[in-house]
C-alpha cells in the first residue's frame, strides 16, 4: 500500500521532470498543435524524445539499480556500511571506461568495455575469495573486493597518467564524475535490459535475503544454501551496478544511503525492501538529476551532487536511527 503511494509519487515526479528543463517547451501547443510553427513542434518532440525521456528513464533505472544492489549487499555482507562498489564493480567499470577513452573507442565502445571490466572485476574477486578460503566467509570476500578495487583504481591512475593531459585526461576525468547528460535512448534500453535481468532473480528470492543477513552458521542451520544464494545475489547486483556505471559514470552514495532511507520508510524486511529500493532509488536520482539540469545555471555532474547531498544526509540518518545498527 505504502509502496503504491510511492510509485504514484515516482510517476508524478517523472511527468514533472518531463515538463521542466532549460529549453522552454510549450506543451499546450505540442499537444494541440496551435500557436507554434511546425519547426518548433519538431524541436519540442526532439527534446522530449531524444533528450529528456532517455535521461529521466535512465535516472530512474540507474538510481533503482544502485539502490537495490546496495540494499542486497548490505544484507548478505551483514554490514550497513556496504555499497555496490564493495566487490570492485565500480572501480572495474571506471578502469574499463578510462582505457577505452585512452584508445579512442566510440561512445558505445567505452560503455561496452566499462560494462565488461566491471563484471570481470567482480568475477576476479569471487575467484580469489573462493580459492583462498573454503570457509565461505563473507569477510574474505570483502577483503578480496577491497584488494581488487585497489588494483583497478591503481590501473585507472596509470591510464590517467599516460593519457594526453590536454585531450584525453579531461575526458576521463569528466566521465568519472558521473553524468547523465549524454545518455541516449539506446543506453536506456541497455540499462533497462540489465536492470530487469538483475532484478527478477532478486525479486524472486527477496524474502530469503533476510535469512542470509543472519550469521553464516545460523543461515545454514536454517536450511539455506548460502553459497548458491550469495552467488546469485552477487551476479545480479554486479550486472545492475556495471550497467549503471558504464552508462553514466561513477555515481556514489546512492547505493549506500538509499537503502537506509528505504528501511526507515518500509522496515528491514527484504520482501518489500528490494522493490522499494528500486522505487525510492529512482525517485532520489531523478530528483537530484532534475535539480542538476534545471535549477543550477551551470550543470554540475551528478556524481558530485549525489555525494554532496548524500554524505550529510547519511550523517543525519546516523544521528536519527539508533536502532539496529548502532
Amino acid at each position, binding site marked *: 500500500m505504502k509502496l503504491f503511494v510511492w510509485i504514484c509519487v515516482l510517476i508524478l515526479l517523472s511527468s514533472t521532470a518531463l515538463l521542466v528543463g532549460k529549453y522552454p517547451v510549450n506543451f499546450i501547443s505540442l499537444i494541440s498543435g496551435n500557436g507554434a510553427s511546425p519547426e518548433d513542434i519538431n524541436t519540442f518532440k526532439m527534446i522530449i524524445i531524444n533528450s529528456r525521456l532517455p535521461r529521466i528513464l535512465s535516472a530512474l533505472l540507474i538510481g533503482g539499480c544502485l539502490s537495490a544492489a546496495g540494499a542486497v549487499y548490505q544484507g548478505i555482507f551483514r554490514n550497513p556500511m556496504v555499497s555496490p562498489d564493495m566487490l570492485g564493480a565500480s572501480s572495474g567499470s571506471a578502469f574499463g571506461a578510462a582505457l577505452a577513452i585512452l584508445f579512442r573507442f566510440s561512445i558505445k565502445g567505452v560503455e561496452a568495455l566499462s560494462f565488461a571490466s566491471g563484471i570481470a572485476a567482480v568475477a576476479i574477486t569471487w575467484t580469489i575469495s573462493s580459492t583462498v578460503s573454503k570457509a565461505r566467509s563473507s569477510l574474505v570476500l570483502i577483503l578480496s573486493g577491497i584488494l581488487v578495487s585497489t588494483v583497478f583504481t591503481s590501473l585507472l591512475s596509470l591510464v590517467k597518467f599516460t593519457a594526453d593531459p590536454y585531450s584525453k585526461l579531461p575526458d576521463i576525468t569528466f566521465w568519472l564524475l558521473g553524468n547523465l547528460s549524454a545518455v541516449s535512448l539506446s543506453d536506456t534500453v541497455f540499462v533497462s535490459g540489465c536492470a530487469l535481468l538483475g532484478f527478477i532473480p532478486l525479486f524472486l528470492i527477496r524474502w530469503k535475503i533476510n535469512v542470509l543477513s543472519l550469521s553464516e552458521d545460523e543461515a545454514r*542451520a536454517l*536450511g539455506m*544454501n548460502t553459497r548458491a544464494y550469495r552467488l546469485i545475489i552477487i551476479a545480479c547486483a554486479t550486472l545492475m551496478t556495471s550497467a549503471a556505471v558504464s552508462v553514466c559514470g561513477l555515481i556514489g552514495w546512492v547505493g549506500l544511503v538509499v537503502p537506509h532511507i528505504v528501511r526507515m520508510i518500509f522496515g528491514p524486511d527484504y520482501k518489500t525492501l528490494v522493490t522499494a529500493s528500486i522505487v525510492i532509488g529512482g525517485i532520489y536520482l531523478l530528483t537530484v538529476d532534475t535539480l542538476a539540469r534545471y535549477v543550477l545555471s551551470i550543470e554540475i555532474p551528478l556524481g558530485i551532487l549525489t555525494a554532496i547531498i548524500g554524505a550529510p544526509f547519511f550523517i543525519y540518518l546516523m544521528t536519527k536511527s539508533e*536502532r539496529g545498527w548502532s
Partner: protein
Amino acid sequence: MILETKNLSCGYSGQALIEKINLRISSGETVSLLGPNGVGKTTLFKTLLGLLKPVSGAVIIDDENIENMTQSSRASSIAYVPQASEVFFPYKAEEIVMMGRAPHIGFFRTPAKNDHNHVDAALSALSIRSLAKRVFTELSSGEKQLVLIARALAQQSKFLILDEPTSNLDFGNQSYVISEIKNLSTRGIGIIMTTHHPNHVFESEGTVILIDKQRKISVGESKEIMTKENLKTVYGINVEIATHESEHGGTHCYCVPVGCKRSKR
C-alpha cells in the same frame, strides 16, 4: 525420530577435538552437555548440525546420514538456537521467528498464510505474543533468547540444539528459560543443550553428557553422572551436592562449590 552418532570424531581440519562419541537421542528426550570451556562443545554442535564435516564417524537421523541430506531437509530435522543472534537490521521479533520457516519455504517463495500461523503458534507456545511487534535488537537478553527458541519452534524440527541458552540471563530468567525448554521436550522435541551451570542439569533432568578436561566423555542419567567426584575432575574445584525439600513440594538437587581453592589440575 532418533538422532544417533556413530563413533563420531569432530574437530577442525582433520584434527579431532572430541573422539569416538556414541550418542542416541530420541525425540522428547533432554540431553545436557556439560564441560569446561574449550573442550569442543560448540564443535560437536556444529557437527551435529551438519555445519562441520565429521573427522570420522557419522551423524545419523532416522537411519539417514546427515551428510547425504540437503541443507533444507537437515534444517527440517534439527534446529539451532545460538547463544545470541547477531542481527544487523531492526527486524521485528515476529520477522525473526518467521525466518525459522525458511526450510519450508520454497526457492522462489515468500511466507504464506500457513507460515504466519506457525509463527503465531510458536510465539504463543512460549507466551511471548506481546513481543511480536517489538524490535528484536531492543529486547532484553532473556526476551531475545525466547524469540530465538520460538524461531526454532517455527522451524518444526524434531531436535533442538541450544548453545548455552542461559548464558546471558539473570537468575530468574535462567530458571524460566530452562523450564520453557523442559516444556518443549514434553511436546516431543528432542533437546540437546550446553550449559555452564550444573544446577541447570538438575533442573532440566534427563540425560547428561559430561566432558572433562582430558575430553573423557561420560554419558548417563543426571543422578549417576552428576556426582561430586565427576564434577571435581571436570571443573577442577571441590563441590558438594545437596538435596533440599522444597516448601513448594518436591526435592531439588543443587551443587555448590566449596572452598574455592582449586584442587590439583
